[in-house]
């Protein structure tokens, strides 16, 4: 969409004419695009027949917005080009101290986040109890929700970011983890702490079982088969009703305990033991730290593995598989370990998810989830843990924030439900961010070993693998 400006900026007349023309074209285009889908609305009447309502006003707004936006983009292009040039000079300097220590600061913030929220809310409400109750939403919807996705994205990063294998069915392993926890805890009453590693092992086993036949495939064939496997697992969960209860899902899954101390209101509960007032928030805070530790475990393992021969082999595989084979690397087992390791973390996250929700159903494991996790990995900058975490926080936090925008009702009227626009904006944001930063937030990779000095490798050299 960005026009190439090949005219003198001084000729403002011709820029104006050009912008006007392009604006009109964009308006016409928008008219064509939206005339049916926006200009009419179809609704069922009482007899369940569709009737058309006309919305020419809305269509006019769409067309006008497109035309004006295009006009402005073209009209200001010379000016923006100019500014870009001057800014580029300024930006060429070392990453700032803040940026360097960002991981540490971020980590610290993550550890104090629940208490920070409680304190702020307590100050706001004027009572400790108010702070506790009010913080529930923030710890749960923002903290835990985001961290689950961070962990999933870090797990997928091993497969996609490091080994360069495009996996579009990652959510299958998440499902395996969640269902193994749900089923085993329901049937055998195993505790969370036993089932957590078991779920990881199951998921890894599934990773190997699914991976073994398909890893011979290259490129997009691998992508489609992983997608197919993801769908197969979901469809089995839906249809194998005897075991999985189908779309109803499994509810009443046992909660996690803190080394045997349950989070229940009774006398043996956590609150009673510590002499705290009863509140559901302790469990949430416990879960928050649990997922934080799990996510950090994923990060730690990833960082360690990258400095091991296996991690280097993954990255080498991403760069050039044939060269890997010429160096005596067994690419099949290397790929399988990447697949299994990634799947294992998916399984961990899945069992956590089941413990947190207390309910699992196939609804939670649709392709869209896989796509969102993959988008986090790519938007974050493949292979970069910090970038991926930021991408996850922005994407999940951003959409969660949309739920909060009640004030928009004042602007658009009471019928306006911001949630409806959540996924639309989410999709659009994905496009915009990708076009703006095709290599993701963190475009460079950190080498796993160095002789003199650790220098970041610019993203233009790294490849994205063909699988």
């Amino acid at each position: 969409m960005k026009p190439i400006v090949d005219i003198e900026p001084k000729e403002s007349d011709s820029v104006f004419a050009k912008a006007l023309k392009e604006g009109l074209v964009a308006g016409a285009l928008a008219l064509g695009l939206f005339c049916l889908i926006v200009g009419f609305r179809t609704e069922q009447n009482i007899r369940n027949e569709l009737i058309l309502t006309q919305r020419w006003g809305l269509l006019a707004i769409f067309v006008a917005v497109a035309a004006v936006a295009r006009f402005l983009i073209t009209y200001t292009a010379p000016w923006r080009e100019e500014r870009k040039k001057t800014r580029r000079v300024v930006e060429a300097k070392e990453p700032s101290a803040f940026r360097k220590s960002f991981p540490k600061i971020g980590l610290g913030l993550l550890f104090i986040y629940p208490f920070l929220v409680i304190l702020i809310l307590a100050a706001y409400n004027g009572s400790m109890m108010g702070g506790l109750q009010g913080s529930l939403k923030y710890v749960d919807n923002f903290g835990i929700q985001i961290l689950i996705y961070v962990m999933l994205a870090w797990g997928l990063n091993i497969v996609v970011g490091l080994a360069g294998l495009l996996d579009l069915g990652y959510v299958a392993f998440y499902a395996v983890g969640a269902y193994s926890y749900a089923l085993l805890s329901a049937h055998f009453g195993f505790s969370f702490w036993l089932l957590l590693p078991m779920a990881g092992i199951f998921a890894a086993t599934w990773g190997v079982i699914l991976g073994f036949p398909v890893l011979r495939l290259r490129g997009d064939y691998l992508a489609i088969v992983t997608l197919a496997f993801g769908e197969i697992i979901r469809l089995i969960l839906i249809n194998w009703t005897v075991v999985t209860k189908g779309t109803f899902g499994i509810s009443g899954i046992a909660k996690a305990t803190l080394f045997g101390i349950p989070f229940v209101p009774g006398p043996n509960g956590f609150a009673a033991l510590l002499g705290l007032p009863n509140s559901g928030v302790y469990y949430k805070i416990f879960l928050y730290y649990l997922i934080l530790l799990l996510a950090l475990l994923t990060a730690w393992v990833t960082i360690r593995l990258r400095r091991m021969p296996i991690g280097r082999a993954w990255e080498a595989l991403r760069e050039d598989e044939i060269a890997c084979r010429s160096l005596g690397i067994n690419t099949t087992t290397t790929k399988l370990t990447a697949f299994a390791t990634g799947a294992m973390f998916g399984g961990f996250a899945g069992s956590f998810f089941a413990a947190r929700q207390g309910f699992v159903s196939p609804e939670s494991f649709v392709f869209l989830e896989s796509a969102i996790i993959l988008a986090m990995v790519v938007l974050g900058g493949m292979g970069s843990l910090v970038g991926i975490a930021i991408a996850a926080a922005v994407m999940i936090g951003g959409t969660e924030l949309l739920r909060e925008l009640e004030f928009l009702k004042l602007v658009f009227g009471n019928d306006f439900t911001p949630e409806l626009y959540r996924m639309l904006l989410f999709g659009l944001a994905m496009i915009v961010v990708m076009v703006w930063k095709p290599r993701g937030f963190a475009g460079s990779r950190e080498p796993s070993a160095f002789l003199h000095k650790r220098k970041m490798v610019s993203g233009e050299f790294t490849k994205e693998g063909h699988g």
Partner: protein
Amino acid sequence: MEYFIQQSINGLTLGSIYGLIAIGYTMVYGIIGMINFAHGDVFMLGAFMAMIIFLALTTFIGGVPVVLALLLMMVVAMLLTGLWSWTIERLAYRPLRGSFRLAPLITAIGMSIALSNFVQVTQGPRNKPIPPLVNGGITVYGTNITIAYKQMVIIIVTAVLLAAFWYLVNKTSLGRAQRSCEQDRKMAALLGIDVDRTISMTFVMGAMLAAVAGTLYLMFYGVISFTDGFVPGVKAFTAAVLGGIGSLPGAVVGGLLIGLIEALWSAYFSIDYKDVAAFSILAIVLIFLPSGILGRPEVEKV
């Protein structure tokens, strides 16, 4: 036997629709090596357009002959869906051309999410039923096999479109440009082919076929909803891969196969697992025939 033939006919009908969508996937993949994930939603959009045109015709004009109505639905849906696809390519894919391979994949996924939710927001989340357009059918003489007229419409329209499309790709300068871009984009550009335009046209053509598929889908099932892009999209992509991605006849063969597998599996085994069957067969075929049925075997360059 009659049952088998009946189910095969049903499968071929369904397969024709998949085949039409699959062509869009396979062409785009052939020319820029990208999985256009939004294609399923473009198909859904096409069906919605057709639905709105149909309603507009009945509301404003009243009784229109069915053939004319169908034709109008198809043509207008084709044009507008083509326009959508052109815009999508222009905004979301072209800026990323030549960059990181996964970037357009992610924008395509984003586009898919955005499109389906856009339709949800503008048209509401409920199913959109329309009254049946084509009724009745014929019974093959001396048997119990019936072929509904709408099935015949689907098969005939598909056949005609494929013939036209084959002509377009193999006999016109646009098709030649397209095939040359598929072989070597750089070289094609050096020889004076407008590569960007050719790629745009590929998207437009794929979207037009998808719009027809959408119209036929709407006519066959009589209902459409904003989520209907995903499953047919994935199935069609499966078909494209099954047939050998990049190969046009492969897409059609793959589509028909997927349709047949689905229909026969539902008829003889279990309707619940029909998608599992389709996907499993995809996995099995790819494991033994890694480049699909009609795809060129990928020679590993050392």
